[in-house]
């Protein structure tokens, strides 16, 4: 124990499984087994995991704020509010004025109707370039830009929740989420900050997102199957709408303000490679050597489902002989916040002292006490991350 340990004191998690750690645990440990929540039709042939229905007013009270955001921003702003509330920071202007925010974000969403109308008109237009300019000038909502800029999730969190210590946005799919957490933990350890809000959001329930990853042949098409099981059919991701934020602070700061530490982030590492066979495994082995988990450990894997990296990662993890959960089976793959969401599940499970039930027949039950969890994040294309979450 050290006063500069980074501890998690708040979790805001919303996904297809519900809102908050308790709802997630209940869904994962449902009597009769876990049941995936999948929308197989909206973006067929690619299934997605839809976000649970939420009363936005609960975390975003002003309708005007809600209108200024697109779904990915609402999801993230909601999750950020939930995390601040859980940590007892929400509404505390003194704490918020020195809360440092690191958001992992992709891009905002488009106006699908405007895009479709322009694409339909372009082939018939006498002067296509002039037509494009004219339609965009006429049809784009001025405020849509602000719903598209990556850093405007953070901007909305500042406005809605009053987080103003600092605000940084990292981009880069899965790796951005890992580095957001890694940077916060490093700054806490170095005394460069006491209180952080870290997380992100992702919205697969908009057509341009499945479209993009379909171009990369990275999606599961057709019938849903769990992450391991779907490897026999060539793998692929099932993307999700998900928001997750964590309040992470120094142990000393948490204790001084009487906040409960849910779990400790004992280590977090990130790296990259060109994904030649075995290269990501080599990175993971180096990372593991820096955080050797001890007794009572399990693994929460962020494996995306994409065949090559998923199969290499699962082979590596199976070699560890620890109970493993490929959580994308339940949460879907959420890109930027996927690592943060797995940290949330890990922190919650470690604080309960037990791992949730297997998500598919290929996963082993863990009857004993869980005291620490290894969390992995191999990007579907690039980036390898790992963290060790231990009891507070």
């Amino acid at each position: 124990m050290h006063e500069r340990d980074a501890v998690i004191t708040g979790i805001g998690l919303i996904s297809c499984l519900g809102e908050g750690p308790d709802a997630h645990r209940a869904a994962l440990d449902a009597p009769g087994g876990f049941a995936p929540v999948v929308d197989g039709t909206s973006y067929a042939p690619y299934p997605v995991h839809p976000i649970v229905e939420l009363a936005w007013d609960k975390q975003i009270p002003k309708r005007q704020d809600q209108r200024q955001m697109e779904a990915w921003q609402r999801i993230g702003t909601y999750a950020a509010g939930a995390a601040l509330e859980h940590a007892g920071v929400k509404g505390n202007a003194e704490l918020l004025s020195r809360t440092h925010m690191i958001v992992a974000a992709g891009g905002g969403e488009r106006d699908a109707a405007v895009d479709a109308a322009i694409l339909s008109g372009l082939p018939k237009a006498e002067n296509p370039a002039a037509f494009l300019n004219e339609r965009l000038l006429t049809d784009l909502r001025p405020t849509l830009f602000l719903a598209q800029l990556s850093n405007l999730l953070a901007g909305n969190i500042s406005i809605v929740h009053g987080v103003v210590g600092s605000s940084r946005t990292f981009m880069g799919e899965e790796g951005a989420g890992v580095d957001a957490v890694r940077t916060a933990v490093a700054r806490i350890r170095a005394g460069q900050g006491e209180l952080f809000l870290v997380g992100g959001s992702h919205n697969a329930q908009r057509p341009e997102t499945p479209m993009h990853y379909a171009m990369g042949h990275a999606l599961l098409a057709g019938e849903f199957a769990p992450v391991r099981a779907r490897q026999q059919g060539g793998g692929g991701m099932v993307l999700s709408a998900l928001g997750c934020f964590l309040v992470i602070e120094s142990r000393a700061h948490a204790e001084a303000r009487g906040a409960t530490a849910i779990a400790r982030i004992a280590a977090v590492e990130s790296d990259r490679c060109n994904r030649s066979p075995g290269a990501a495994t080599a990175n993971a082995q180096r990372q593991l050597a820096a955080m050797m988990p001890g007794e009572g450990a399990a693994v929460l894997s962020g494996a995306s489902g994409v065949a090559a990296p998923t199969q290499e990662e699962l082979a590596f993890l199976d070699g560890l002989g620890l109970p493993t959960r490929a959580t994308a089976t339940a949460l879907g793959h959420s890109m930027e916040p996927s690592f943060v969401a797995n940290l949330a599940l890990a922190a919650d499970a470690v604080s309960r002292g037990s791992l949730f039930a297997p998500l598919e027949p290929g996963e082993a039950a863990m009857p004993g006490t869980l005291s620490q969890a290894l969390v992995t994040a191999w990007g579907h294309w690039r980036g390898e991350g790992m963290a060790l979450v231990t009891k507070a």
Partner: protein
Amino acid sequence: MAHTDSHGRPIVVVTGMGVLTSLGEGQRDNWAKLTGGISGIKRISRFPLDHMRTTIAGTVDFVPADPFCAPELSQRLADRAAEEAIAEAGIGTKGNFPGPLFLALPPVEIEWPQRQALAAATGRNDGVSYADLIAVADQPQFRDTYRRFLFASVGEHLADRFGTRGNPIATSTACASGGTAIQLAVESIRAGLSDAALVVGTDASVNPESLIRFSLLSALSTRNDPPEGASRPFSKDRDGFVMAEGAGALVLESMDHALARGARILGVLAGCGERADAFHRTRSSPDGKPVIACLHAALADAGIGPEAVDYINAHGTSTPENERMEWLAVSTVFGDRAGSIPISSNKSMIGHTLTAAGTIEAVFSLLTIRNGRIPPTINYHDPDPALPVDCVPNVARDAQVSCAISNSFGFGGQNVCLVMRAEPV
């Protein structure tokens, strides 16, 4: 640790710089034109301008990019700026940079030519929907598009090419991104996580939709003729910023690391301040409080008082609101001295390079210190009486500058101020 600052942290120095703007490529060319009061703003030739209210920008047209799109050109500009910075620093070996990469990158998004290619593949001439696009998206010819428009793709390329360590961090804090990337590198070196870091800021976003998006927010100057007269920071008749492209790169090191390898030290990155503004999505708090706090934070981080500052490299976008707010903040922090501190805006000549601005203007601030010459604010013929600034009007000025501040403010309430010095405190 031999060389620490007044807070006991490793001193962070700059040992290499690279810059590329609409004025040209490289420090030498840019500095000559910048101090010569030359503008890089011109009529856009990249795409047809029918119906556009704004028809000018500081585009970089001398760097080829194929297929043309923002991430491709942004990457190529970043390549060249980083190449220059690393060569000047003489650090590492070719393709093996001994530290992490911090990249300020504009948000990446599939653009119209790619969207149109998908639509063409549907074979439909009318009533194209996203469902149709999704149905053809897995055709093999779109594989490269998928990769090009991943957010990680530019950083991955740079990390591969220059051999930086670890996973690259690509940051976006809108128009403060360049300052944020520098701050991330400074924090990494101060925390002892690295001895050196490569910082690159790049932006090549002048395409029809980006221009229209800014135009719809009434952010852009419509003073199209002559183009070089449009960007007029601190003038009474300023009417908006001019979009521009470019890249800046810096090699940062701990002073100990730089001295140990016998590197030439170009300047000191002495302090960084940041503060988020919760007032509005595009507008700054009218009371200037977040920017005032940001300036104070930067000075405190550098361990100096306002009296030590000789020059301010303004955010100075040429929008009515920015300069009002920037002057409010500067006059509050610097008091009676505010009107006599030279405060000039590079954007009067290179336009607003958006994501890249913080790194490009940090390079120019350091060149100001090194050369003892302050680049002017051009197009200053109609002073705004509400802004009694010494903006170094129209002509460069020789002056000893040992400490400069560079301001960067962005949509989403993003504010970053950097303090750069000739020598450590």
